[in-house]
């Protein structure tokens, strides 16, 4: 184990951030040609590409639902995304994350508008440095916006960790591995709706309550950046008065 401290005495983390400070996050929208919607995110050193296909005819057909669209998420890590080579065969972790990511985005989508169709969300983690599910969910909701799929709200996501006894916002890989806990949340601010909540590690009940508050703040920060990214992508120079 390392003896290097992850948080300095004056409360600065080993990558220079304050305890409740996010990494540098950059979203891009509409980056792929062959999808209905796409987004790319650089979240610190984490890099993820998301493509949305659909709503389209459900394949296989027997999985189609008569009253709504079926949402599927496929979270994959590229074999070169982590320090050691990762086998391209899907791992149990990827299977679980695909499920919780689908369940994190599902509540936002008006699936009842598109019965019998499917909406597929493909997530490729190109480089992983912690909080990949949070970055993936945040980027995927932008890809859904880009695909023009009606939604109740954007889903923003972030993780809180416990490192050397202190709660920190936006957990990087080193803090996840060496810290005491990791707690990711996905959130629709306008509904005060938690769509993903997981935790591993050990925290007290009081730390849980403080984490929820910190997570809300973090999700709102991400939400603001998501909105800015959409505005930057779709910005129109002047509003048009002769529109029909």
């Amino acid at each position, binding site marked *: 184990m390392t003896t290097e401290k992850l948080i300095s005495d004056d409360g600065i983390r080993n990558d220079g951030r304050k305890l409740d400070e996010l990494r540098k996050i950059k979203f891009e929208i509409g980056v792929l040609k062959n999808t209905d919607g796409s987004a790319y995110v650089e979240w610190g050193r984490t890099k993820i590409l998301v493509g949305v296909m659909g709503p389209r005819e459900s394949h296989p057909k027997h999985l189609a639902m008569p009253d709504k669209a079926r949402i599927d998420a496929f979270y994959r890590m590229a074999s070169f995304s982590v320090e050691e080579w990762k086998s391209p065969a899907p791992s*149990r*972790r990827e*299977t*679980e994350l*695909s*499920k*919780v990511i689908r*369940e994190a985005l*599902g*509540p936002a989508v008006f699936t009842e508008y598109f019965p019998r169709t499917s909406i597929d969300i493909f997530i490729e983690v190109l480089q992983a440095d912690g909080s990949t599910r949070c970055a993936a969910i945040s980027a995927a909701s932008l890809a859904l916006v880009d695909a023009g799929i009606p939604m109740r709200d954007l889903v923003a996501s972030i993780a809180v960790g416990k490192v050397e006894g202190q709660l920190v916002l936006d957990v990087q890989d080193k803090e996840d591995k060496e810290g005491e*806990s990791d*707690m990711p949340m996905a*959130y*629709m601010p306008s*509904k*005060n*709706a*938690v*769509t*993903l*909540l*997981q*935790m*591993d*590690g*050990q*925290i*007290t*009940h009081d730390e*849980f*309550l403080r984490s*929820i508050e910190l997570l*809300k703040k973090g999700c709102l920060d991400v939400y603001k950046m998501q909105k800015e990214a959409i505005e930057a992508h779709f910005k129109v120079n002047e509003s048009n008065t002769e529109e029909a």
Partner: protein
Amino acid sequence: MKFEIGDPFSDTPDEGVMQVSAEFVPFASPEFEPGKPDETAVELARVVDRGLRESKILDTSKLCIVPGKKVWICHVDLYILDHCGNLIDTAALAGLCALLSAKMPEVKVKGEAVEMTGKKLPMPLSGNVPINVTLAKIGDKLFIDPSFEEEEVLDCRLSVAFMQKGDDEKSLMICAMQKGEAGYLTTDEAVRAVELAKLKSQELRSLVSSKVNING
């Protein structure tokens, strides 16, 4: 539980390995199909695994036989035989009780060779017993222990594992959480769910301790 001698992971050369898996037997439910574990089975195994692992109930450093070469691999294999709801809590309790009541084989190292002595040893356990409680949400109601029928219609669930580190309730810690299914909880509901889980986990803890010795 089954024990096997195997290679350690490269990042933890001096520690044994605990592996949780879940098998859904086809006659347990018409929804289950034969074949590879599907995402529900994978999630179940990983949620149970997370509760046991993060509580550090099992001291994996004591499962090392030859550092860097040979360690114990403990398989916790969950078989779902008849599905009547609340698989997560049931499987977590079953896994926990199996771990608490297991005995592992004793071995002697002679040079390069590892020999079984034929004797059985107690497991290297700490007293950090994780108890998983799942809260289900339908409409604005939260309730525990959903039945199969309730699971068919629930909005979502939140599973919370509480462990007790010391003797009193103050030493209760959360060691795993998982929200599942397609709906959502408000933040207030999440807070309430964790409180309820804490309360109920104590009840289950007494039940477990009345059946098996939980102090290792």
